């Protein structure tokens, strides 16, 4: 057996390995990218969902802005209070209280309350159904095919009797469903006891009443009965200002359609 052949083979492979290793280690020293430890620690503390609810490009973008002092604490709604405290500790500032926002579907057009004007048998997607003309008789309400449930990373959205429902306890406020809804009937509300209007129909009363049993008809009874001026009716649709609302529930009792409800947490 020719041992020199084996020796040469080992030497050549080891030599190539050594040369590559040397080049790589020299390169990694020469071209080391200085890393900001603060940014890394903050990225670590953030949930890492890259949802973009804070308005920056992903968690790392937000972390960079925070480290530079450009961004406000508490913009990360999925992270919640724990995340704010952790980041405040890293940055060495006082943690402010966070107003937790959760998404709410402003529609009560379940199968019992509203009819369908046509049968839709296409792709199971709200956007596609609307492109085909929409199957529900209400042109503002929830289509119920679950575009929002599809995108929710936390499994908080379910389709219940033809209407999307969002579990406020599971919702992290990442705004994925808000952006996914082609009817734009999902919006954020504060996570606290309050009164909400669960209808998005801005048609005139008679037309709205025709398409859904629980449609807001813009009768202004709620507006008149509210002592604190929290309820306003615009465009035949009631809106409750959560800041002014005292939770007296007078508007809920006065509503003939039952589309104003309590939001319980």
């Amino acid at each position, binding site marked *: 057996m020719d041992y020199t052949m084996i020796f040469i*083979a080992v030497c050549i*492979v080891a030599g*190539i390995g050594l040369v*590559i290793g040397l080049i790589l280690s020299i390169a990694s020293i020469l*071209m080391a990218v200085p890393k900001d430890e603060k940014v890394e620690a903050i990225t670590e503390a953030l949930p890492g969902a890259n949802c973009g609810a804070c308005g920056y490009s992903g968690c790392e973008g937000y972390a960079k802005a925070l480290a530079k002092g450009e961004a406000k604490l508490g913009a990360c709604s999925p992270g919640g209070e724990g995340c704010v405290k952790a980041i405040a500790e890293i940055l060495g500032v006082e943690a402010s209280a966070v107003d937790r926002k959760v998404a709410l579907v402003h529609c009560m057009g379940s199968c019992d309350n509203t009819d369908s004007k046509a049968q839709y048998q296409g792709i199971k997607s709200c956007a596609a159904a609307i492109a085909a003309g929409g199957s529900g008789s209400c042109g503002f309400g929830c289509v119920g095919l679950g575009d929002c449930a599809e995108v929710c990373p936390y499994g908080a959205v379910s389709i219940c009797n033809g209407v999307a429902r969002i579990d406020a306890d599971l919702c992290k406020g990442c705004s994925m469903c808000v952006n996914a809804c082609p009817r734009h009937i999902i919006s954020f509300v504060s996570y606290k006891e309050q009164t909400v209007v669960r209808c998005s129909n801005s048609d005139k009363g008679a037309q709205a009443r025709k398409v859904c049993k629980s449609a807001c008809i813009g009768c202004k009874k709620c507006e008149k009965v509210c002592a604190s001026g929290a309820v306003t009716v615009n465009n035949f649709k009631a809106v409750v200002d959560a800041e002014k609302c005292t939770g007296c529930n007078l508007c809920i009792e006065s509503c003939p359609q039952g589309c104003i409800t309590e939001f319980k947490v």
Partner: protein
Amino acid sequence: MIKALVAVFLAAILTENYVLSKFLGICPFLGVSKKVNTALGMSAAVTFVMVLATAVTYPIYMYLLVPASLEYLETIVFILVIAGLVQLVEIVLKKYIPSLYNSLGIYLPLITTNCAVLGVTMLVIEKSSPQFGYLHALVNALGAGIGFLVAMVMFAGVRQRLETCDIPKSLKGLPITLVAASLVSLSFLGFSGLVDNMLG
């Protein structure tokens, strides 16, 4: 000379397409072809690494392995060199073009184990002859990369169309993707002989 180079380039893209005719690099072909954008990024990175890898492995083989009659070490040495190169490219990109580095993301380290890159460097050695030198090898690698890009982008388009199709439940997902891939591959068979007749 130029005519021969063009023939090598076109052959690498069309008749000898590394994905659709030689069935190398099927993993990224199926994995990263969901969107045209990511497909473009991945193929750009692959093309770059293919050319660079050939540029380095060809002389190593010709001037190091052949004189020592160690041709049988080709595979392991090439893998070593490609892995090292990808690491180097990653370090350089991170320093000088961080935006490209971020957009390539996981694809760059994935290329280390992409058999299309290894395939290009090894098959070009088989081809080498007095008429097929270093320049031809580089042009062949560039063509292979462009061929990879063409296959990826075409297939990404096919897959985007598939998204909105009404597919039988049992074929949903990977099965229909494989069927589509075979059809695309079949269509590329139509090119065989074309380049040789055109420029040969």
